[in-house]
């Protein structure tokens, strides 16, 4: 199995693992980590596809797209983390379960 | 030919140091012992691997860059070890 085929499957698995974490984990920080895993999976798939022909240099177009994607992904992560901080500050919550009220949760504070 | 042989020997030596450092990281009981193990891997192991690569370098510039990488790594490793050690020491001496 050539590296590009191997890492294509790894990319799919990373994406699905990330999706599972995104759906099932209650803590928002873990959701963001899981979302980053999903984006890593997508990047890996693109780069693996670009490297499929070992006899010529790898396709530079997906490379450029992934570099752009990495910068976008860090901006999104930074913004998401700021929102988490904000939500925690105003509602004292760190999860997104609307039906769940922790004994220490307080919604009355500004 | 002889150069390649030396490269292989130094590369393997470096790998052994990295292996020892990693085992130490995983098995040693506290932060200070782990730092000790880690610095062995960083300084000595990387030193051997850089030596192995130096023997394969095409030009003087590549060789200089490799040496620079090793020096920066030494600098960073020493400082980070100091910071981690100091943090842990303070935690010990003044418990909250």
């Amino acid at each position, binding site marked *: 199995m050539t590296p590009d085929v191997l890492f294509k499957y790894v990319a799919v698995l990373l994406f699905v693992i990330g999706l599972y974490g995104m759906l099932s984990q209650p803590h928002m920080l873990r959701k963001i*980590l899981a979302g980053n895993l999903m984006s890593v999976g997508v990047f890996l798939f693109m780069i693996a596809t670009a490297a499929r022909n070992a006899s010529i240099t790898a396709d530079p177009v997906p490379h450029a797209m992934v570099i752009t994607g990495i910068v976008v992904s860090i901006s999104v992560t930074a913004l998401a983390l700021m929102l988490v901080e904000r939500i*925690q500050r105003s509602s004292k919550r760190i999860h997104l379960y609307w039906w769940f009220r922790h004994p220490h949760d307080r919604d009355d504070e500004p | 030919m002889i150069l390649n042989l030396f490269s292989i020997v130094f590369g393997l030596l470096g790998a052994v140091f990295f292996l020892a450092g990693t085992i130490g990281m995983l098995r040693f009981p506290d932060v200070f012992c782990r730092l000790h193990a880690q610095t062995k891997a960083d300084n000595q192991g990387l030193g051997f691997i850089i030596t192995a690569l130096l023997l394969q370098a095409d030009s003087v510039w590549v060789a200089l860059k490799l040496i620079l990488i090793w020096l920066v790594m030494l600098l960073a490793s020493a400082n980070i070890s100091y910071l981690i050690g100091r943090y842990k020491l303070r935690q010990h001496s003044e418990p909250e």
Partner: protein
Amino acid sequence: MGPVGGVFDGLLALVLLVLSIRLLFVSSLFHAVVLFIALGLLMGLTWVRLQAPDVALAEAAIGAALTGVLFIDLLYKLTHRNNIRSSVSERLIYEQTMPRRWLTACLSALVCIALLAPLLMVAAQSPTTGAGLTPAVSAAMAATGVTHEVTAVLLNFRSFDTLLELTVLFVAVLAALTLRVMDTSSLPTAIPKPPDPLMDGLWRLLLPLLVAVSGYLLWLGSFTSGGAFQSGIVMAATIILLSLTGQRTLELLPPLVWRALLVVGLLNFIVVGAAMLMLEGAFLQYPQGWAGGLILLLEVTASLTIATALVTLVLGLSVPAMFKRYPDPR
């Protein structure tokens, strides 16, 4: 590469998968973040294995440095709030929500397994031969003004992508600043005490070197792996490291200069694009012979903006002094 390369790739793939599963299910959030940083470093190695050194350079600076700072900083803040119990104690949430959480986990697993099959089929059926766009790019290289393919794609063939990416970065910074304006109360931050002699000495050696590396990467971009992105990211990482060791960085800039740096890359792209629209009849269509110089101009400003924007995003919550000009509207 032969069998050794194959074994290495297999091990790398295995470690990537184990790390990703561990970081979702390890009980401590701090461990999860550290595992994520390790994953980022190994991704850098994977990019090299897949012949993508440009991506590896970007990933090494972002995955290892910036993401780690972001997550650890937030984690520190969440744990040092007065209301510790409700903020980070995942276990309490787990225990209290057990029956419904089981349901969520089962449903999520079902969705993921249902999705896994078609995705694996896509991976199996995706092309394994063919040259992709490599020949097309190589054929058009002569007119691009640079000799490195990835830079040519980023700033010539698909420069519109880079323009949009700078826009995304700008919007993220705007949103972050809005969030910050909304609360000016002081936060506990991970910024340590005043600098100590050892760190000062380290900086005296390291700072010139890091600035040189950043400039070197920008220069490399026109003919080999490197370029505006990597250069901007290394610069951002340097400034963030400086701030984290207690030095004053962005606060030293007059607010106007800081804001100008935030927009100069985007503005330059729009101005150049519009000028080309008038001269050449197409947006960002460089005239013959001018491509190299225009790309260099765009790269320098884009790199400055990427560096400033990333520093603002990462330190946005940690450096209150940067925002002192904005009064609390309440």
